[in-house]
């Protein structure tokens, strides 16, 4: 067990800078999720921590030791790969025992550790099988077993659930969470799936184009997205983003259609400033208190059972998503008066896309 520090880490491929200086210190036992769209550099960052990619600049420190120039095998880490990367010619037992054998652990100890891991992961029956005789979920568990028998300083997960079907993914997600809670090993987990990030992480690092957009707990990232990118990436359906202007008094924001939404905290210094206004679909409700809001034309209604997603359009043509709990109470062609819940407005700078703090 150990801390993992990533200090101003950079990665360039020729003139292209893929990782533009990431800084984060992961606490002992913390579960950090690297979240971002494909190509954002999250896997590269993980592979640099693992030692599978060279580090162009900065430092990776594992357990107080700078590991930049160490081989993966000397970094005391274990990694779970997207395609499992099991040794196809070895039994499940040998797959898990491989790393221990190399490290010269004695036979009895290997057997007890593998047996323990197999018990935790419910793999006891499969120890003599080859990976090809296992299902996807079982293979994934073997890959995790191989990681946990080593009792490494840190676990690295590279999109471990991407190859599983939706149901199994949910199940394995919970297993990973339980396992990490139980073992308390520092973990870095790469994913593009926001649900995995929200459910597994102690903290999330949201990446885009090789830059850390935001580092925070899942709820911080959801409630106070630091940028338009984070706002759009976290949350499903995504946040509505509208062009708006702070009204001259700084008390509210003026919507394109002319409606005025009150701000929780007035911004007199920003009077008349154009902003990007973010409102989550789930924070919009049908207006019942007679507030002056724009009527929304309902174009499409998706009834999901527990929720209803309404695809609407504002008078000026801007699309607006509304998520309501329960069954639909409107149909296509209706006009709805909707208003955001108080305090649910997010303001972003039009040029930089960064959040305007309250």
């Amino acid at each position: 067990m150990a801390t993992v520090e990533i200090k101003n880490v950079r990665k360039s491929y020729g003139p292209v800078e893929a990782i533009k200086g990431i800084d984060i210190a992961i606490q002992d036992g913390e579960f950090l999720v690297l979240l971002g769209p494909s190509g954002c550099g999250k896997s590269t960052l993980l592979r640099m921590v693992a030692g599978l990619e060279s580090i162009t600049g900065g430092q990776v420190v594992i357990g107080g030791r700078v590991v930049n120039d160490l081989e993966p095998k000397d970094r005391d880490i274990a990694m779970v790969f997207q395609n499992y990367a099991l040794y196809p010619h070895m039994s499940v037992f040998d797959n898990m025992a491989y790393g221990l054998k190399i490290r010269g652990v004695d036979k009895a100890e290997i057997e007890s550790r593998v047996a323990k891991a197999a018990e935790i992961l419910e793999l006891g029956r499969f120890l003599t099988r080859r990976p090809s005789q296992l299902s996807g979920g079982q293979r994934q568990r073997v890959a995790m077993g191989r990681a946990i028998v080593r009792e490494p300083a840190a676990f690295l997960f590279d999109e471990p659930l991407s190859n599983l079907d939706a149901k199994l993914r949910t199940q394995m997600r919970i297993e990973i969470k339980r396992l990490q809670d139980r073992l308390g090993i520092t973990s870095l987990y790469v994913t593009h799936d926001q649900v995995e990030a929200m459910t597994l992480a102690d903290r999330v690092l949201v990446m885009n184009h090789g830059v850390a957009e935001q580092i925070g707990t899942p709820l911080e990232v959801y409630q106070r997205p630091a940028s338009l990118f984070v706002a759009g990436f976290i949350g499903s359906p995504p946040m509505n983003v509208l062009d708006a202007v702070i009204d001259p008094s700084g008390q509210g924001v003026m919507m394109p259609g002319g409606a005025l939404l009150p701000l929780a905290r007035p911004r007199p210094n920003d009077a008349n400033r154009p902003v990007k206004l973010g409102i989550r679909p789930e924070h919009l409700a049908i207006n019942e208190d007679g507030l002056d809001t724009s009527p929304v034309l309902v174009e499409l209604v998706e009834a999901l059972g527990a929720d209803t997603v309404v695809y609407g359009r504002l008078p000026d043509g801007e699309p607006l998503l509304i998520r309501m709990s329960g069954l639909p109470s409107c149909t296509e062609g209706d006009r709805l008066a909707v208003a955001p819940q108080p305090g649910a407005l997010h303001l972003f700078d039009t040029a930089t896309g960064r959040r305007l703090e309250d």
Partner: protein
Amino acid sequence: MQRRVIFDNKLLPYLLLAPQVAVTLIFFIWPASQAVWQSVHIQDAFGLRSEFVWFENFTAILSDPNYVGTLRITAVFSLSVAVLSMAVALLLAALADAKIKGAAVYKTLLIWPYALAPAVAAVLWMFIFNPEIGSLGRLLNAMGYNWDYRLNGDQALTMVILAASWKQVSYNFIFFLAGLQAIPRSVLEAANIDGAGPVRRFWTITFPLLSPTTFFLLVVDMVYAFCETFGTIHALTHGGPGKATETLIFRVYQDGVVNNDLGASSAQSVLLMVILIVLTTIQFRFVERKVHYS
């Protein structure tokens, strides 16, 4: 569900098969049965009469002490060629698989020897090993080593082994490289993280995962060494000096074409065929067990 092609025309499937069947009949079944037929006959020197002699040709060959020597040479030659060409090809393929500059050029150059006719290749080797005009041959003699493959049987055998292996390296290289590239990168990375250094990774992960390729090449290379090296040996040493480089296939030619003893030559062909069938069967029965097919 199995998909089946339904032909309306009853004749068409046979027509489509005909060329392949014809090739097999004309170029394999016919000559092979001729060989079997001839192997139980003795012809006179002018080929006018032939007499059925049961297995006399076979008993004559098997009791010939020279034939045992030929068998021994063939065994040494074939095993050496198979092992040497595979080892060198595997080494080169492993290097080519690593990220190196100019890998494409390197790969192309390595494939060239395969495109060379055996006789041409043999001339190249002569230019290297000939004691008077060969670059290496002259160098060896200048250094005081008594090199002349035309007089020294062991040297001659070494040279034909080198030449025959060299030609097969290209073929093996292509297969090994394809095999290496089929090994998922992440499996090797996992082994690296598990603590295995490059040498250990190679022997515990790469090599076992290559075993289908290695096994296939072992079979192919043995057949190559037994049957297809005639041109190389013929051009380099003519089986000599003495019988130092006379392999089974070379003796088949020697007895049949040069000495005109068709019966003996045919009997040897049949024996060679039997030896190859037995060898291949043994390989499939015993070596293939250790092969892991994913």
